[in-house]
């Protein structure tokens, strides 16, 4: 799908499990740098799991398939062989749906460390960080560009942040780390319409020809300023259909009934996953 000679993130036949429960059942996806892809699908279809697998969350076990970075000259890098920090240094970024708070650690201090590592992939622990002056002026410019108050950088990472503030902090990190490939996991969830529009605009400013973006979302508003090259629909742990922007609009208006009817096997997988989740619950839910 992607043009030859373009650097890309390639996911093939990916199966993944949590606590022995298979969630992803063969995912294939290619994203080229500079492309925007949207990933939609009902809750529990495996969208966030895909994001975690790309980033290397230790609770998610990849049981089959591959995730690779393929350079323009065809050189392949196996992401699955890398720790999360190595993946970040290789140019992969995940904006979390629910970012963790790190009390006592200022956003600016954390970000300076992260930026230093990501821009100097061979840096050893304990070596100098990016000069404070350079970092500050860059951070200040980025914050102004994204209409974020500079006071924000002095706050502790996600500690006491509102939902909207957390998402803005994620977008700021995206802007500073400038990854080759970014997965944005429901960056619009919990935001009001104005905040979604702002987020959409911010992402459009940050992205461009150098960044491949996978936008995981339930809504099409986030795509307003980020027209996806392809929209993919996930159901029961697989991508069952891909299309243009009209697909996102259809799903947003009509939901997933047509998809479920069209792909009964994936719909069955979805039901069995839901049943497993219910039977694993601490208190049995009666129907």
């Amino acid at each position, binding site marked *: 799908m992607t043009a030859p000679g373009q650097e890309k993130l390639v996911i093939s036949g990916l199966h993944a499990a949590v606590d022995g429960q298979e969630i992803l059942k063969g995912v294939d996806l290619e994203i080229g740098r500079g492309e925007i892809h949207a990933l939609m699908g009902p809750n529990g279809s495996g969208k966030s799991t895909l994001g975690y697998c790309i980033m290397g969350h*230790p*609770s998610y076990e990849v049981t089959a398939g591959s995730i690779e970075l393929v350079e323009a000259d065809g050189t392949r890098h196996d992401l699955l062989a890398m720790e999360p*920090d190595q993946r970040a*240094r290789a140019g992969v970024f995940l904006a979390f749906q629910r970012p*963790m708070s790190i009390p006592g*650690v200022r956003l600016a201090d954390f970000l300076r460390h992260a930026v230093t590592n990501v821009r100097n992939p061979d840096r050893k*622990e304990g070596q100098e960080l990016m000069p404070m002056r350079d970092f500050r002026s860059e951070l200040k410019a980025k914050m102004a560009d994204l209409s974020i108050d500079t006071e924000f950088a002095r706050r502790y990472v996600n500690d006491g942040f509102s939902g909207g503030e957390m998402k803005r902090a994620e977008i700021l990190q995206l802007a500073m780390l400038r990854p080759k490939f970014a997965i944005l996991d429901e960056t619009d969830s919990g935001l009001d319409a104005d905040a979604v529009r702002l987020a959409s605009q911010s992402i459009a400013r940050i992205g461009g020809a150098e960044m491949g973006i996978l936008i995981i979302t339930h809504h099409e508003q986030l795509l307003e300023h980020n027209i996806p090259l392809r929209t993919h629909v996930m159901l029961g742990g697989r991508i069952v259909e891909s299309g243009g922007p009209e697909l996102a609009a259809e799903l947003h208006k009509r939901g997933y009934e047509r998809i479920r009817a069209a792909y009964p096997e994936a719909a069955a997988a979805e039901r069995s996953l839901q049943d497993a989740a219910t039977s694993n619950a601490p208190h049995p839910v009666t129907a």
Partner: protein
Amino acid sequence: MATGLHPSAGDSSTIAIGTGDAIGDINKYDFRTDSPAVFKARRGIDAGIVAQISEMKREPAWMRDFRLKSLEIFNSKPMPHWGGDIAVNFQDIFYYLKPAEQQGKTWEEVPDAIKKTFDRLGIPEAERKFLSGVKAQFESEVVYGSLQEDLSKQGVIFTDTDTAVREHPELLREYFGRIIPPTDNKFAALNSAVWSGGSFIYVPKGVKIEFPLQAYFRINAESMGQFERTLIIVDEGAQVHYVEGCTAPMYSTESLHSAVVEIVVKKHGRCRYTTIQNWANNIYNLVTKRAMAYEGAMMEWIDGNLGSHLTMKYPAVYMMEPGARGEILSIAFASAGQHQDAGAKLVHAAPNTSGRIVSKSISKNGGRSSYRGLVRVEPGARKSRSSVVCDALILDDKSRSDTYPYIEIEEQDVSIGHEASVSKIGEEQLFYLTSRGLTEAEASTMIVSGFIEPLVKELPMEYAVEMNRLIELQMEGSVG
């Protein structure tokens, strides 16, 4: 400009330790320098040794008698049966060493071996600047000290306690051993018998010292106990911040450190006492610290404990008159083979007194940290308020944390609060940070630094930097 007594904030060349290029150079904390001990007492403790120490110091009779009486008390008291396991052979310790005949008056007069030691502590170029206002205890005595002229003009006394005994007997006789009498506990009695060195500070009425006074302590003789004795008197409306820091070299045999720190803060005075101690892993650090705060006075202890085999330390504030305030902030870091039994004590002895204890502990690699604290409200101390918050962070399954909060309230009309939490570094937090390019070790260190940040930000700039470097050192090799 009255800033000669402390390194200016942000001037990293004058940071006490950790200014070397390689932050991770653990060897820096494991070195010895051969220094000529002019007088070397024999091992063990008895009336003969105690009298000899007093004689060496040419002390007046009252101090010699105080020492001998304290020895009797020490001998009569049993070992504490709580806290940690104290395996110290009192007859196997040197109780007194004198590194040089005279206390250095100028930098040139300071013995080369001692200069070398300060070099290794990471003060390569700026020794003079650094030391110009520092009371540095080397072995058992203060070997170098100088006092800013403007301070002495204001009547401030800042000297080693031995000198104070000779030069300020009236103040010493009034306060020495009055806040912590030798009968207080076995180790206070031991210190009272064999004490040596430490700092004496007197701040006269209404004098506010705007910059921290600093001291540097260090053990440097094998199997040697260090028993410094510090006395601080803050007169009415006066103000001082005293900073004591310590790294100790590592030795193979057991070593005992047992200090006594007594502080009096008079009406509307303010005193803050900041300590960061990073002892070698074989040191028993058994310290008694107590302050008495009078009407409207404020006493703050900020206490960081790293290293040592066993630390038992519970800085106390006795609020003696209405409106007195006491605050104790403490950080403990226990790693393999270490037990930090640290805490705090607040005694409300008058109405309208208020106190606060914030304790943070980190246990790692089999280390054990315990919070042990007492809040006591005496009868009649109406409208007293105290709050205690202790948070523990446990880094792995081998490590341990305990909380022993004691609350004794003999008055109805009071407000006392206690909160405790124990947490572990979460996999989700680590994943979040590593997904941004931090290694797992860097991520853990960052989480730990964040955990203690509320206390570290109370430290003077250079000590905050030092504290963070010590934490980095402690965290090295903790992951993978």
